[in-house]
């Protein structure tokens, strides 16, 4: 997809002014957070579980080559086929080729962020394939022709009114005159429409939550059951997965599954967790006759060898988005690519380039909540800070900021001068503003005073006040 992360600031402003979006986002703030907390509190020692999750991921990443090879052998033994894709283009080409070879016309898809990452739908449509998303949220945004705005709730930015209108347009040709409908009615209608699609599809494409090296199994997790219909009904099942998705064995997968659902939705277990291993066996009564797994690098090996390796622990639960005040205020689209929130603010610069996503690492208050809730303990605030440093080193930071920082650094390294200068400034500001208590406007601080008042110092700096108190 087109990357619009450069326009983050204007997109964020637009999001703040978008009433429908703001209405949709208020709902997000309570549900996910409370449910996760409840699930975590019910667990004997969630912190120890998080540590184990991080250990499993770190171990796997350190032996990624071996586990990928083992996974490949097991898939082959089960009668499936593994394809390797160094980048998004080759992944799309491989998948299109498999579809062509199968003489496919219609493809159903179960939600895959890896697929979003490489704009798989456009590639399939360009090859004259009819593509239907089957996760309800993904289906809604496919109708709206929008990218997902949340990893696990792609249509979280849409209100019921907007969804009623979309269904009216696409299912009833506008006959319902955009009447607001009940959630149950909308879900039932989508179920009916999509059931037809499932039954007539030639190829089913799913993502993967985990790949198990021990058994060559692809694990998918859903609440709707759409991954299962996608991987059972069509003749061909294709899996697209990032190479970081592999885990050593089923017991390791258990630990990560215990973390995933609790962190994502607060469930102990999502409704459907499925292990797919190979095509249907000779005496099976159903299932696809072909099973393909596309293992995609697309920048991951570069991340593996660099200082941001910990980011590859990510299991795409969405907890960091749910707990981020910036995400909560502007939603996912403002971030300008498929991944949003704190994980997106790290992944986007790593994937599309720091120069194309300058604002993302800075759109963060460093409150630390994302790092505190991450099920695999990715130090997201540290990584965001590292990206800021990298921007500064690569001279990507705007010059005004750079000069300001240099001036501050010059002072900060000279404590006496610093104290003298801040003391002077505090006295001066206090003389002018102490009576009113705050400044509406200040030279050089327009960015601050345009949205809030600057409190006026009351005469002394903190250091001066501290010293005086110490003397007493």
């Amino acid at each position, binding site marked *: 997809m087109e990357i619009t992360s450069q326009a983050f600031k204007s997109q964020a402003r637009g999001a703040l002014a978008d009433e429908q979006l703001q209405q949709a986002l208020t709902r997000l703030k309570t549900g996910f957070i409370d449910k996760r907390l409840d699930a975590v509190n019910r667990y004997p020692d969630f912190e120890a579980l998080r540590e184990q999750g991080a250990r499993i991921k770190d171990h796997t990443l350190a032996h990624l080559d071996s586990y990928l090879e083992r996974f490949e052998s097991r898939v082959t033994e089960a009668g499936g086929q593994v394809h390797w894709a160094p980048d998004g283009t080759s992944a799309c080409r491989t998948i299109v080729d498999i579809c062509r070879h199968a003489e496919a016309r219609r493809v159903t898809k179960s939600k895959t962020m890896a697929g979003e990452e490489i704009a798989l739908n456009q590639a399939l449509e360009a090859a004259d394939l009819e593509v239907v998303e089957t996760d*309800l949220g993904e289906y809604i945004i496919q109708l709206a022709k929008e990218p997902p705005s949340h990893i696990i709730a792609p249509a979280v930015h849409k209100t019921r009114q907007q969804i009623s209108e979309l269904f009216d347009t696409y299912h009833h040709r506008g006959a319902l005159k955009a009447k607001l409908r009940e959630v149950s009615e909308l879900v039932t209608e989508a179920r009916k429409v999509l059931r037809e699609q499932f039954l007539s599809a030639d190829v089913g494409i799913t993502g993967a939550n985990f790949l198990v090296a021990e058994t060559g199994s692809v694990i998918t997790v859903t609440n709707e*059951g759409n991954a299962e219909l996608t991987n059972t009904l069509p003749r061909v099942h294709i899996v697209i997965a990032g190479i970081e998705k592999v885990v050593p064995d089923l017991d390791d997968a258990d630990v990560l599954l215990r973390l995933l659902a609790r962190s994502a939705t607060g469930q102990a277990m999502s409704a459907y967790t499925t292990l797919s291993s190979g095509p249907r066996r000779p005496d099976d009564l159903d299932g696809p006759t072909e099973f393909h797994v596309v293992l995609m690098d697309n920048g991951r090996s570069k991340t593996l060898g660099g200082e941001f390796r910990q980011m590859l622990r990510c299991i795409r639960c969405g907890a960091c988005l749910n707990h981020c005040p910036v995400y909560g205020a502007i939603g996912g689209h403002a971030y300008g690519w498929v991944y949003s929130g704190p994980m997106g603010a790290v992944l986007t610069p790593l994937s599309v380039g720091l120069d194309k996503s300058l604002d993302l690492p800075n759109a963060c208050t460093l409150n630390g909540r994302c790092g505190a809730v991450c099920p695999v303990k990715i130090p997201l605030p540290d990584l965001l800070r590292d990206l800021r440093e990298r921007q500064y080193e690569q001279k990507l930071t705007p010059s005004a900021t750079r000069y300001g920082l240099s001036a501050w650094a010059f002072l900060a390294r000279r404590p006496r001068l610093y104290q003298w200068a801040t003391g002077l400034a505090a006295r001066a500001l206090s003389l002018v503003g102490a009576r009113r208590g705050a400044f509406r406007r200040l030279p050089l601080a327009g960015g601050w005073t345009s949205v809030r008042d600057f409190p006026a110092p009351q005469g002394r700096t903190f250091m001066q006040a501290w010293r005086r108190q110490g003397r007493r």
Partner: protein
Amino acid sequence: MDEQRSRVLDNVRKALGREQSLDADSVRNAHAQDVEQTKPPRPLWGEPVREHFLAGVREAAATSDEIAELAALPDALARFLDSHELARELTVAPHPLLSGLTWPESWTVTRGAPAHDALVGLSVAYAGVAETGTLALYSGPQSPITLNYLSDFHVVLVPAERIVPYFEDLWQMTRQEPSFPPRAINLITGPSRTADIEQTIQLGAHGPRKLHVIVVG
């Protein structure tokens, strides 16, 4: 194809600072060292395993019933069908456990994979997992997977002796099967649901609207 394979693997190895993968023993030892030394906590409960399993089933918005022996299954099914005002018409998994069972003559019972519009399906679980009230279904000639997803009402029979405490226990059982891994293992916890419209949980998104678990024994 092979060229792409070596490009990906070479880049991974380059990132890890080695020219070829470590031998299997070294990886096994590293796994033992890095991962297996710590046993992370698992969910705990006070009641017997069977009770906890049933509590999990109900918490996941499924319903449950218990029968002492298999012969009581048609009666239990009749209770379920009546409670939802359904006709006595169902598709049944061709599972050996059910083969000796005689269904009342007035019922319409089809064996095998379900028709696309099948309303009621009956499967036999490979096992139940008490930790989360999860059913494990193991694909094969005895268990068509479409039965678990196409029917609106899904009834699953679980032999009591096959209820295990944790997922690790389930894998210990499956690893003993000659057919392991099967094409699919479905871990099912409650009926299908979605919260994609305004975060409102709605049952019956794509899979069954109702899930009914019958423990036998």
